[in-house]
């Protein structure tokens, strides 16, 4: 089995699972309890928070635990809207965001907020001048993803940060769900960003856990109110086994990050160089530095993405149509649509997404299967 769908989710690391289990068995007190069991849990919670903060070179009280990327995105966007609605009702994002961002924005639009979607170029990248032009006196939030989940474009985060330095009151959010551990941490954790969303299961932590970075002094309203956990900003008894597991997974992820990034880039390059030699292949991802090392999106003209996915699956290779979220809806990729790619091509797109555990041997195996499938597809796409 070859798993090339790591942007959908990753396998929980064995040692992370071990931590999860040990904490579940031995440190199961409620961190809010006064007694020693609660105290022990509280200490582990805070030590996990500190480890995550240290790994990102931020302060422990700037880390808030969530249930994952969707909650993080929802919280920052709606929390900003609630907190700052008196100052303005204009929010800016890109036209290629994950649905967690896009649909949060849509919901706000229904409530009377005004949303600007920045267009992207043929590589799926926004133009910073467009951002500059979109900013208004009533703008309260700019939300930009670090790495596009469908084709792997890295957005110009540092340039956006420079623009926003002139507007210190605007909240700047980066959705880094696909971005962490991919060699761009300095661009994500830049000196202007206010909020960053992370999701644990994209880096070998369990499902249902994530966190946001929230810059000291910035305020967003809570979405989940209740018992007052997480400084009264995100209530709900802390998911300690998953939090400890995630702290460990993040440490493992960032250990020797450069080497891991190089490994993924090498696998991507080997596949890219192979498949792009074929006439009916249209690549959307590129090899240059403006693209993530782990995502390769391409189309085979005249074959539906779904068909390609299942054909590879029959050979034990797991890839996806452009994103796991949209794959069952039979819609064209929203990123490719925003790039004005014709639907006859965008519905033929598939995504290979890698992890540092993937090898060049797997790439070779993929290429071999590709050759065979390409041959078979020629029966149906001769005239495409």
């Amino acid at each position: 089995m070859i798993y090339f769908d790591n942007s959908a989710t990753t396998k929980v690391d064995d040692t992370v699972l071990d931590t999860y289990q040990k904490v579940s068995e031995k440190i199961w007190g409620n961190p809010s309890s006064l007694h020693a069991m609660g105290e022990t849990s509280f200490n582990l919670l805070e030590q996990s928070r500190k480890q995550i903060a240290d790994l990102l070179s931020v302060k422990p009280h700037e880390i808030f635990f969530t249930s994952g990327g969707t909650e993080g995105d929802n919280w920052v966007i709606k929390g900003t809207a609630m907190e700052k609605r008196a100052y303005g009702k204009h929010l800016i994002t890109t036209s290629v965001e994950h649905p967690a961002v896009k649909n949060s924005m849509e919901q706000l639009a229904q409530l009377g907020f005004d949303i600007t979607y920045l267009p992207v170029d043929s590589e799926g990248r926004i133009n910073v001048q467009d951002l500059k032009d979109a900013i208004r006196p009533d703008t309260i939030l700019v939300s930009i993803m670090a790495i596009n989940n469908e084709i792997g474009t890295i957005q110009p985060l540092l340039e956006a940060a420079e623009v926003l330095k002139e507007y210190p009151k605007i909240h700047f959010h980066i959705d880094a769900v696909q971005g962490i551990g991919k060699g761009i941490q300095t661009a994500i954790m830049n000196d202007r960003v206010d909020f960053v969303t992370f999701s644990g299961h994209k880096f070998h932590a369990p499902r249902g856990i994530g966190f946001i970075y929230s810059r000291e002094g910035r305020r967003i309203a809570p979405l989940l109110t209740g018992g007052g956990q997480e400084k009264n900003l995100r209530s709900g008894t802390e998911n300690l086994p998953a939090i400890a597991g995630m702290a460990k997974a993040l440490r493992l992820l960032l250990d020797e990050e450069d080497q891991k990034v190089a490994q993924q880039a090498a696998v991507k390059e080997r596949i890219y160089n192979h498949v792009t030699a074929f006439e009916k292949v249209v690549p959307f991802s590129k090899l240059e530095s403006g693209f993530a090392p782990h995502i390769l999106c391409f189309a085979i003209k005249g074959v539906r993405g779904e068909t390609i996915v299942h054909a590879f699956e029959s050979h034990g290779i797991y890839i996806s149509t452009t994103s796991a979220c949209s794959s069952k809806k039979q819609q064209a990729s929203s990123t490719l649509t925003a790039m004005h790619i014709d639907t006859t091509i965008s519905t033929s797109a598939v995504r290979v997404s890698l992890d540092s555990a993937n090898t060049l041997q797997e790439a070779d195996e993929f290429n071999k299967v590709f050759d065979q499938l390409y041959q078979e597809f020629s029966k149906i796409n001769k005239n495409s």
Partner: protein
Amino acid sequence: MEYTEIMVRYGELSTKGKNRKDFIARLGGNIRKSLRSFENVEVHPNRDRTHVVLNGTDSSKVINRLKKVFGIQNFSPMLKVEKTMEAVQKAALEMMQEQLKPGMTFKINTRRSDKDFSINTDTMNRELGGFILDHFPENDVKMKNPDITLRVEIRSNGIFLTSAVINGAGGLPVGTAGKGMMMLSGGIDSPVAGYLGMKRGVEMEMVHFFSPPYTSEQALAKAKELSGKLAAYAGSVQFIQVPFAEIQETIKENCPEGYLMTIQRRMMLRLVVELAKKRGGLAIFNGESLGQVASQTMESMLAINDVTNMPIIRPVVSMDKNEIIDIAKDIDTYDLSIMPFEDCCTIFAPPSPKTRPDLEKTRYYEQRIDVEGLLNRALAGVEITNIHAEEQFMNQDEEVFAELL
């Protein structure tokens, strides 16, 4: 940038006349203490500056420690290079690449104590400036108030380059003012008061009253961890824990509600005075801020202070709570202080303590308890611990957890 040494400049102590030597020696000792965990670091205190030679130690870690040593005005991380123009150029270029942003101005400021070196200060300024300009055509030289001043010091043992001046903690070296006893509760104010006392050169011993079973082990651990935070400014501090439950029970049993707090405070003060006498303390420090709570009115101070004529210094007496909180956040004690554990001041607190206790009545009611015996028993139960900078007490499982994480 891998710096080779850090040059430390003194603050107020430069003006202290004949005490100067003692001050410098004490500061040198304090710097050594705070850098003790870095095996390869050497500290050389001189008349005008102290040189901290890094010998390969990570400069950013050393800098973080030095920021907390009182008596340092500022310091500069320096790069030592061979005594050739090429070496100076190479290092200067590397430093400027890191620091010189588009539009910033700079100047070169050379000092030459080694007059045998062939290039004089003017030539060095001009040639190195020209060299930098060649590589950064977008930047300009500016003599008055440039954004970056690159200092070049030509000494007999090498050429030293520096371009940053980092502010130190100011104040006077801890220990130069003598020893004081700090009444450390665990709240927000007392650690700040302790910090301010240390800033003026006081070697502070932390006195903490604890009342098991009314107060928890966690409250004691918290006071110890707070002491660890303050120890960062002195290398280490002595933590003196005084059992207080019997005294509180006795007062509660025998004295009227309205005077519980006043009499408790008098007993605490007596205990601290005894400890000071035994241990060579010259004054008592506490975190009282005028008008903040019932015990902190001037009438209360009068009634409490009645038991001693040893000076009681209240560094935060006239500060607003918000000002105190700002300092607490700065010195990283705030988050600890607000952890909600009962301390000995909050248990047995009467619902309505007298804000204007009468001195004569206080003395009268206090006769109902055996002051002498209670004091002796409490002093017999005193425990003293030496606490190091940033030592942890709250999370006893840290190492076990580190395995998990």
